[in-house]
C-alpha cells in the first residue's frame, strides 16, 4: 500500500483529540436566544461596558450582586472592555449579529446610526423617564424618541494647576485676551501654557469645538456635516480657524505637540510642565492616582471670545456616556428595569466613582466635580465633541484637516473648502 491506515488513523486521532480537548475545556457562553428556551424565570442579560481603573469595577460587581439577589432568576453578565477598542468590538458584533443586550454608547452619530438602522430600541416606554435629567436623555434622541439612558455626562471644561497658579499669583482667564496674556506670562517663566498632543488628533479638536461653537452656535456643525442649510465655508468656521491659529502664533501650545500622545499631554500637565489642559472630566480621577501628592486640579470655563454669539460662553463641550438596549434583546423589560435601578443609584455612583450626576438633586461631594456640575447647570447646552457628533464617514477627514490647520499647513478658508468637498463626496 502507498500509505498505511495506521498512520492515517494516528493523524486523525491527534487532530480529533486536540479538538475534543479544547471543546471539553471550553465554557460555552450561550447567546441570550438559547437561554430563553429554559423556564421563563431564568434570564441572562449580557451587558458590555467600558472598564475603568480604580473602584469602577468593584462598584459594578457590588451593584450587580445586590440587583441579582433582589431579582432572583436574573443574571447580569457584565464585561468591561478597554475603551480603545470597544467601538470595534461592538461594531463587529453588530455586523455579525452578536451584539449584547445592554451596551455602552456615547451620544452622537453612533447612537443615531444604531437607532436609524433599528439595532437599538427606543426607551421612551421601557424605562422610567422621570428618573433622569431630561436634557441628558435628549442627548440620545432620534426622531422624537430617546435611545439610551445616561451613565455620566463627560463635561469637558478647561483645567488648571491650582498650586502652580497660586505659586505664580495668577488666576484662570475669563476672556480671550486674558488667555493670551496668561499664555505670554507662562512662556516667560518657561512653562508651557496649554498642554497639547497631536497623535490622536482629538486634543486639537477640543479647542476647535469651543471656538466654532462660540461663533456658530449649537447646530451649525450638524447642518454643515449634513450639507443642509450650511457648509464648512461658513464664516463661523473661518473665524474659529483663525482663532485656533492665533493660539499657535502666540506660543500657547508646546511647539512639538505633533509628536506627543494623550498620556504625555496629561503627564506634562501633572508634572507642572504645562499650566492648563483641555480634556474630559476623567482627568480628575486620573490625577488622584497619577499626579503628585501636592497637585491641585481645578476647572475653569473656556474663555469667552469677544465676538462670540451671546450666551454661548457658558456652554460646555462633552459627550454623554450611556447605556442602550439592543433591539434583539429577548427581555427588554428586565434590561430596562436594571437600568432604572442603576439610575436610581446615581448619587452613590457619583460620589464613589467621581462621575457627574445624571439625576436631579444629587449632592456632589468632591469640590472639583461639584464646580463642574455647577458649570453644567449654568450652561444652556452641552455639545458633544465633534469626533463623536459628526457622521463617522467624515470624522477622520475632519480631524486630519484640523491638524493641518493647527500646523499651519492649511488656511481656515482651505479647511472650509476641503471639508465641504468631503461632505459632498462621502455623504451622498
Amino acid at each position, binding site marked *: 500500500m*502507498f500509505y498505511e491506515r495506521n498512520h492515517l488513523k494516528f*493523524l486523525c486521532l491527534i487532530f480529533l483529540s486536540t479538538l475534543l480537548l479544547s471543546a471539553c475545556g471550553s465554557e460555552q457562553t450561550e447567546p441570550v436566544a438559547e437561554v430563553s428556551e429554559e423556564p421563563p424565570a431564568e434570564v441572562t442579560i449580557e451587558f458590555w461596558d467600558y472598564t475603568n481603573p480604580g473602584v469602577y469595577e468593584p462598584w459594578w460587581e457590588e451593584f450587580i450582586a445586590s440587583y441579582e439577589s433582589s431579582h432572583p432568576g436574573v443574571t447580569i453578565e457584565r464585561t468591561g472592555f478597554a475603551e480603545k477598542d470597544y467601538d470595534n468590538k461592538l461594531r463587529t458584533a453588530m455586523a455579525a449579529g452578536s451584539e449584547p443586550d445592554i451596551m455602552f454608547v456615547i451620544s452622537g452619530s453612533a447612537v443615531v446610526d444604531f437607532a436609524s438602522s433599528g439595532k437599538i430600541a427606543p426607551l421612551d416606554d421601557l424605562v422610567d423617564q422621570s428618573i433622569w435629567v431630561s436634557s441628558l436623555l435628549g442627548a440620545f434622541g432620534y426622531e422624537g424618541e430617546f435611545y439610551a439612558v445616561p451613565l455620566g455626562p463627560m463635561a469637558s471644561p478647561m483645567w488648571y494647576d491650582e498650586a502652580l497658579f497660586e505659586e505664580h499669583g495668577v488666576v484662570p482667564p475669563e476672556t480671550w485676551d486674558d488667555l493670551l496674556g496668561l499664555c505670554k506670562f507662562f512662556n516667560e517663566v518657561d512653562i508651557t501654557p496649554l498642554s497639547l498632543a497631536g497623535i490622536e488628533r482629538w486634543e486639537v479638536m477640543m479647542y476647535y469645538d469651543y471656538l466654532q461653537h462660540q461663533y456658530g452656535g449649537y447646530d451649525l456643525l450638524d447642518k454643515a456635516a449634513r450639507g443642509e442649510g450650511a457648509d464648512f465655508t461658513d464664516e463661523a468656521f473661518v473665524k474659529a480657524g483663525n482663532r485656533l491659529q492665533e493660539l499657535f502664533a502666540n506660543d500657547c501650545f508646546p511647539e512639538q505637540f505633533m509628536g506627543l500622545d494623550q498620556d504625555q499631554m496629561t503627564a506634562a500637565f501633572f508634572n507642572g510642565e504645562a499650566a492648563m489642559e483641555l480634556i474630559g472630566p476623567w482627568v480628575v480621577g486620573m490625577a488622584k492616582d*497619577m499626579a503628585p501628592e501636592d497637585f491641585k486640579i481645578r476647572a475653569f470655563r473656556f474663555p469667552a471670545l469677544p465676538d462670540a454669539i451671546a450666551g454661548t460662553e457658558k456652554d460646555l463641550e462633552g459627550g454623554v456616556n450611556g447605556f442602550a438596549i439592543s433591539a434583539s434583546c429577548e427581555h427588554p423589560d428586565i434590561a430596562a428595569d436594571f437600568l432604572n435601578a442603576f439610575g436610581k443609584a446615581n448619587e452613590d455612583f457619583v460620589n464613589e466613582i467621581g462621575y457627574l450626576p445624571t439625576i436631579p438633586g444629587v449632592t456632589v461631594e468632591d469640590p472639583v466635580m461639584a464646580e463642574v456640575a455647577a458649570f453644567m447647570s449654568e450652561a444652556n447646552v452641552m455639545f458633544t465633541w465633534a469626533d463623536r457628533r459628526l457622521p463617522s464617514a467624515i470624522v477622520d477627514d475632519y480631524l486630519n484637516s484640523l491638524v493641518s490647520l493647527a500646523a499651519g499647513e492649511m488656511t481656515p478658508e482651505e479647511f472650509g473648502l476641503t471639508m465641504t468637498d468631503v461632505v459632498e463626496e462621502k455623504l451622498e
Partner: protein
Amino acid sequence: METAEIQSRSEISKDNLARWVQFSFLLLFSLITTYPLFWMFTVALKTNAEQVRNPLGLPRHPTLESFTQLLQDQSIIQYTFNSAFITLVSVVLVLILGSLAGYSLARMEFKGRGIILFLFLTVQWIPLVVLVIPLLVTVQYLGLYGTRISLIFAYVSANLGLAVFLMRGFFRSIPQELLDAAVLDGCDDFKAFLYVMLPQVRAGIAVVAIVSFISIWNEYFIALVLVADKAQYTLPLGISAFHGMYGTDWPKLGAALLLATLPTLVTYIFFAENFIRSTSRSVGFGGR
C-alpha cells in the same frame, strides 16, 4: 575541527582583535535589546505617580507591590491559563498541519500544487483585522461563538500560511539523495516523512514554533472580537485594561508585560537551543 596550524604571533593577535570587536558588537546590540526588559522592571517597581513624573528613570523607593497585586489577581491568573492553553494547542496544530502541508508542497508532484501553494502564500498577507467580521460570522454560523476552539482554529489558520511557506522552504533544502535512500530502504511516503525528512528540518520546526507562539501569545484583536466573556479572556486582553484613556496603571502594566514576556522567552530558548544547531557541526550527506 580545525586542522592544526601554526599561526604567527601577528595572526594570533589579529584574530584576538577580531574576536574582541565581534564580541563588543554583539554585546552592544544585546544592551539595546535587553533594555526594555530592564525598563519594564523599573516601571513595575515605581508608584504610578512616580512613573508619570519620571517615565524613564529609576525608582526612588522600589516596591514590589505591583507584582504582588498582579500575582494575587485571580482574573489575571485565569487569563494566563487561557492564553497558555490556547497558544499551546494552536502551536502544536500549526506545527503538525504546517509540516504536513509544507512537505507535500515541497516534495510531491500533483495537480493544483501551484494553486494551493499560492493560496497558502498570498492569502495570509491579508491583515487579520480586515477579516474580522466575516470570521465572526463564520464562527457564529458554526455555533462556535465564545468557545476556545473558535480562537484556536482562527489562530491556526492565520499562522498556517506562514508555517506552510517556511516548512516548504526547509523541506526543499534537503538533498534528494536522503529521500531516495529512504525509499530504497522501503519507506512509504508517510514513514519517509516522519522518520527521515522531519528530523532534517528541526531548524524549521523551531522557527515555526517560535514565530507562531509569539504571534498567538501576544495577539489582541481577534481575541477581542471572538471572546464573549471575561472568563475567556486571553492575557493581552486582560493587560489592555491597564492602559486606557481614563487612566493607566503603569506599574501594573509594566509588571504584567514583563511577566507576559517570560513564557515567550522560555519557549524561544527551548526551541532555539534544542532545534537549531548554531555552531558548525557535521551533517553530511546520507546521514541518518
